[in-house]
């Protein structure tokens, strides 16, 4: 065993000397408890190590052992439904073995060695295979078929293929390569800081449907896209992230709770097995991997957690699945970077963050995307990355938000002002944006209705006009507005309350399909168009507002998905009541 010696301990940072052949980002074990750590700096014979566990009790003279390998995750069947800490230790297994607290020096493999999986071969002896080719499949959960792929760098002829029950370390196939026989197991290891390989990256096209109206209709994200959710505390970042994790049409969800509340992870853990996926009808947990490194867990493991998460996401992408990776919150990850950087006594950039903050964030988000996977099949998979940002004091000019905005394509800006008025999701519709809008509109044209994009533009116009008019009202009062302008105010209010507001805790309202979003929006805009026409005929605004049908519009969001025809009737009613009033007047 090759060992070095601890010379310095300062919080999560340990310096060791005389490690034999240390390499940057090698995994090491520190002290008699064998705490996990990673080499992050080399100077002469000294190596700086960030330790993933509490370092109390360590001191100079303690032993450091290098594993000679970078921090890696285990990839194979058994990931789904798991809950891991930031360095892929299974928290459920740890609890069963070590009790209610996460103690130090715990070593547990990420994938169970005991569990046997039924392996179905997909190739025959004699077949030529290349890296990424599917050798066989395992029904990992009732909804997800796990594809066992030939690892990167291997190519040759299948000389043996198994069938039946295996654990993740059993050889299921042997491939005859130019360099000799290579046994293949269902498990691969992959260093978390290295992006997994793919054949080709493509521009995103389809939307990731989240069931959240303001997201899907106003600021859509595409499959393989990137988005950020900045907002002050209490503005609903986590509720929005949870809602997307629950309802998005991704086939796999990887949720990274990065430096956030313990109870929030518990919430997900208790709730997801109970909730059904609107697409498959099965419990949501069956397509979910959770990574929980709560705020009080060691800070270095928090830094690693987002990489652990995205590597697992990429692995399922490589099988040809659409994966949503959600990180809540990337600010806590950046703070972990800052803390380690401070201990290394690096020259700080803005607000004490290291100068490489922007590069690290960009490199992380760049691992999202829609790709053609390795292998001859040409599978297409995607990773969409959605990160929350927690700007101090809600100030968006701070470094983490700014560095994030430079790389992500969608910005959902949460605001506490809206949250105080209990307008949820508290996304500001004026300053949020999506750069995927045009791509997504093509999809709407084909899948929903050709009028969708036009409706959206009109609704956005009304909302923007409202903001301008509000200025006027604030200065001079509502009387200063013309009838047309008052109608804009009336419709905008309806758009805000009856369309944008959505209650994540109400069963009927939590998820809205694209078709229903379209119908709901059309209903409100129809009211606006017809009322406008009446105004042009010279009727006063008073006759066109406070109609009984408006109360029905307000409740239209609760119309069940399967009763879409009720929107037809409502639209007729709108027309009747707007005109009906007129006929009374004429009479």
């Amino acid at each position, binding site marked *: 065993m090759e060992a070095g010696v601890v010379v310095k*301990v300062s919080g999560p940072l340990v310096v060791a000397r005389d490690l034999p052949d240390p390499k940057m980002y090698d995994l090491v074990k520190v002290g008699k408890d064998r705490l996990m750590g990673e080499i992050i700096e080399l100077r002469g014979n000294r190596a700086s190590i960030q330790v993933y566990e509490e370092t109390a009790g360590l001191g100079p003279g303690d032993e450091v052992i290098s594993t000679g390998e970078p921090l890696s995750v285990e990839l194979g069947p058994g990931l789904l439904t798991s809950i891991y800490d930031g360095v892929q230790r299974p*928290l459920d297994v740890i*609890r069963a073995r070590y009790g209610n607290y996460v103690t130090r020096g715990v070593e547990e493999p990420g994938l169970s060695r005991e569990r046997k999986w039924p392996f179905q071969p997909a190739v025959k002896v004699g077949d030529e295979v290349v890296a990424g080719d599917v050798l066989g499949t395992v029904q990992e959960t009732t909804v997800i078929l796990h594809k066992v792929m030939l690892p990167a760098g291997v190519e040759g002829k299948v000389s043996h293929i198994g069938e039946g029950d295996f654990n993740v370390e059993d050889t299921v196939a042997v491939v005859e390569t130019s360099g000799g026989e290579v046994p293949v197991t269902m498990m691969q290891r992959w260093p978390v800081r290295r992006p997994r390989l793919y054949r080709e990256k493509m521009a995103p096209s389809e939307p990731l449907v989240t069931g959240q109206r303001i997201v899907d209709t106003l600021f859509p994200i595409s499959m393989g896209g990137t988005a950020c959710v900045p907002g002050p505390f209490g503005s609903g970042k986590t509720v929005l992230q949870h809602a997307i994790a629950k309802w998005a049409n991704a086939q796999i969800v990887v949720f990274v709770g990065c430096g956030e509340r313990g*109870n929030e992870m518990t*919430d997900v853990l208790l709730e997801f097995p109970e909730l059904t996926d609107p697409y498959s009808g099965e419990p949501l947990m069956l397509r979910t991997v959770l990574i929980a490194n709560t705020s009080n867990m060691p800070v270095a493991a928090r830094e690693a957690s987002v990489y652990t998460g995205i590597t697992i996401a990429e692995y399922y992408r490589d099988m040809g699945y659409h994966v949503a990776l959600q990180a809540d919150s990337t600010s806590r990850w950046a703070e972990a970077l800052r803390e380690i950087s401070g201990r290394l006594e690096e020259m700080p950039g803005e607000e004490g963050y290291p100068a490489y903050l922007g590069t690290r964030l960009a490199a992380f988000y760049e691992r999202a995307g829609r790709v053609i996977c390795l292998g001859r099949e040409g599978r297409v998979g995607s990773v969409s990355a959605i990160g929350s940002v927690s700007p101090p004091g809600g100030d968006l000019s701070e470094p983490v938000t700014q560095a994030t905005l430079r790389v992500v394509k969608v910005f959902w800006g949460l605001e506490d002002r809206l949250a105080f008025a209990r307008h949820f999701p508290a996304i500001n519709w004026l300053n949020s944006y999506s750069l995927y809008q045009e791509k997504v509109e093509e999809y709407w044209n084909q899948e929903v209705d050709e009028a969708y994009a036009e409706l959206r533009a009109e609704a956005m116009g009304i909302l923007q006009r409202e903001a301008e008019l509000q200025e006027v009202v604030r200065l001079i009062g509502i009387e200063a507005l013309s009838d047309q302008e008052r109608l804009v105010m009336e419709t905008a209010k309806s758009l805000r309350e009856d369309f944008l507001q959505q209650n994540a805790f109400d069963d009927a309202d939590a998820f809205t399909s694209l078709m229903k979003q379209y119908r709901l929006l059309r209903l409100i805009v129809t009211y606006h168009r017809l009322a406008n026409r009446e105004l042009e005929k010279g009727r006063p605004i008073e006759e066109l507002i406070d109609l009984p049908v408006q109360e029905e519009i307000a409740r239209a969001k609760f119309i069940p998905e399967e009763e879409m025809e009720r929107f037809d009737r409502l639209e007729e009613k709108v027309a009747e009541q707007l005109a009906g009033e007129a006929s009374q007047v004429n009479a």
Partner: protein
Amino acid sequence: MLKEYLTVREIVGPLILLEGVEGAKYNELVEVEFPDGSVGLGNVLEVEEDLVLLQSFEATSGLNIARTKVRFTGRGLELPVSRDILGRVFDGLGRPIDNGPRIIPDERLDINGNPINPFARDFPTDFIQTGISAIDGLNPLVRGQKLPIFSGAGLPHSRLAAQIARQAGVLGMEEEFAVVFAAMGITFEEAEFFVQEFRSTAALERAVLFINLADDPAIERIATPRMALTAAEYLAFELDMHVLVILIDMTYYCEALREISAARKEVPGRRGYPGYLYTDLATIYERAGRIKDAKGSITQIPVLSMPDDDKTHPIPDLTGYITEGQIILSRDLHRRGIYPPIDVLPSLSRLKEKGIGVGKTREDHSPLSNQLFSAYARGKEAKELAVILGEAALSDEDKLFVQFSDTFEDRFIRQGEYEDRSIDETLAIGWELLRILPRAELKRVKEEHIRKYMEGADQA
């Protein structure tokens, strides 16, 4: 025999640098013997080869380089615990100061604790009735929650915290209950208020008090909340009690942390607070909650005073990012003589939806509270408008909302310091206030609830 060192090289503020040390461990507890023979405690902040950096919990006045002795204890800072800690008063480092007998410990617990495995947590769902409408009705407290009070200088946060401690209870349950109280840097008078309060309600025998006053050593405060939470964990998870922890005032705690950070010449984050303030606060606040299969629970009410009532100051800001909501006190309401001056709009309880509703409080609780929130927000908005444009500029509807928000502050928020309202009373007041508004504006409550609770009351 403990190793003793006379090799102090530097003393800077609360920090002591020692050389020629063998076998020191990070975070180890040390005893510092002053030249006059008195002994204080400290712990190891950093070790490098034979150099050790210590922080002294005692003020360093009187120390000198030549005659200061440092002894390494080989363990971390610990709290001796047994059932007998109930009813006792300790200093900020867990030493009895009530002239009572020494604690004969069943166990000595490391005050830093270990993080609860997220998988072992159970979600807080038991509604705690505090008897205060602004909390119960709108921002309810749930057992296992951490809900801070954001206050400011001169606001009645102590009275509010005491009222919560006095009245809090879970509907329909009689269980073993304890209060752990940690004072950090508050004045003698404030601390005395709590001691008297516990005494007068005979709650003292169910309480454990840790007191670090304004004139006690500032660095000692860094240990105080951890002492309190260690005691709380012992009571909750070993003795199966439901523990309410009051930490007051977290602002002074953070300032002590800043003092250490500045003395170490660390790169500061915002306003001179260290970059790891978030992580540090999290290791305190996250020590609340419930554990599966455990009977007890820890509910935390940290109190902090916001410098200049500024919610974006790093202390309230980072606290808000960790805790499950916040109760914010308003100077405006206080000035107008409304007690408790809870500013309900920016206040929030994140666990609200899990703690209320059918089987916990009442089916109409959640929609009603949303309706009250949005109506009050609209009333306040209209009032601001009226300030600029005059009452006349308001529509008739807006006037009703203004009337609503005034009545709401007067009848719903305002209540007596000793008034203990049941949740039914609180909700009844809410429904009654909604009658002020046009029926069509009640968009957030369900028809059937309007009929049952608002109009049903008419027929009754």
